[in-house]
């Protein structure tokens, strides 16, 4: 059990700057004056290089704040004109999954994408995928958001982009897959509250058609080839379907190119330049 940190009665007198007292109560540690020139100003012009944050005992204010608030020290990084959206673990949908799952929460990712579209400082979005799939609706919602953005988007599949990760991967303007990354394509299975009547089959078929329509509409693979991959037998031990690794996904037309983060960022920068030349016209 970890004692002595964050307790309301402040008895901790260790020599570290971590303390319940705010910076204003520690004049020696942090003589902060908001009117003093040289402080970084939140209203500053976006194009200008922000002023160097004030240093106290070798640490910037942000570092002390993050130690105090979170117990970690994060090094403030320079602002980038691209944003990186990571889709990891299960894409969580309408049901909160048990805590052993690593999840991507769609209710947070969707407004983030709105903010990225709206923010003038952000010029492009890199989507990094290492996902085992997840909720069909949530995955398709994220895919539709990404594909309808006016800013350049590049996706990179690292490790895996399985099941509903496939439409997310192809939703970007340009897609990359790492040489060893894999994508599992298999039919949508029965789970959740679905009643076992003939209509169940039709319902699942409709769900599947949504995924197939999205993937064929946003990549070079055609419907027959995708269905063949989906219903192939003998590839997977416990299921029908197939696994595409690196170059195979490119050969099938699902992904545009084999590459890593270097190629993905270079492509994104090229797309940003292209968009600037076309005076902000959409890439669609």
């Amino acid at each position, binding site marked *: 059990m970890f004692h002595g940190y964050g307790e309301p009665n402040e008895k901790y007198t260790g020599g570290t700057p971590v303390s319940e007292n705010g910076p204003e109560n520690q004049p020696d540690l942090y003589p902060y004056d908001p009117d003093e020139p040289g402080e970084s100003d939140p209203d500053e012009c976006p194009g200008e290089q922000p002023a160097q944050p004030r240093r106290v005992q070798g640490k910037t204010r942000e570092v002390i704040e993050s130690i105090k*608030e*979170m117990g970690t020290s994060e090094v403030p990084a320079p602002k980038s004109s691209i944003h990186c959206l990571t889709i990891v673990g299960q894409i969580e949908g309408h049901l909160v999954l048990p805590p052993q799952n690593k999840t991507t*929460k769609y209710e947070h990712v969707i407004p983030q994408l709105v*903010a990225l579209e*709206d*923010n003038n400082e952000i010029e492009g979005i890199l989507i990094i995928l290492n996902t085992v799939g997840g909720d069909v609706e949530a995955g398709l919602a994220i895919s539709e958001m990404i594909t309808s953005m006016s800013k350049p988007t590049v996706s990179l599949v690292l490790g895996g982009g399985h099941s509903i990760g496939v439409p997310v991967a192809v939703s970007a303007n340009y897609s990359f897959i790492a040489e060893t990354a894999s994508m599992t394509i298999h039919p949508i299975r029965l789970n959740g509250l679905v009643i076992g009547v003939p209509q169940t089959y039709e319902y699942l078929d409709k769900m599947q058609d949504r995924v197939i329509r999205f993937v064929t509409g946003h990549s070079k693979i055609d419907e027959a080839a995708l269905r063949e991959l989906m219903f192939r037998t003998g590839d997977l031990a416990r*299921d029908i379907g197939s696994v595409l690794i690196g170059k195979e996904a490119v050969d099938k037309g699902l992904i545009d190119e084999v590459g890593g983060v270097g190629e993905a960022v270079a492509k994104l920068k090229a797309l940003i330049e292209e968009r600037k030349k076309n005076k902000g016209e959409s890439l669609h």
Partner: protein
Amino acid sequence: MILYTPMQLELVFEGLDKDPPRCFEQITHRGTSLLVEKASFGRYRIIRVLSTDPAVFLDPALQPDQLVRPE
């Protein structure tokens, strides 16, 4: 809800029926409504950001699973 995943569903849903129901509450932190869960040492873990301002969702301090201390 349909889960489309190659993972075994027994693994995904393991413990769903055993864990005690989680108790969420709504607080206001730095002017933003948050759906939170009680964590240790008087802090709260963010479950969901309840805001209509998209810029709030890019704030690194207001991401799901971050710990906040109410003001």
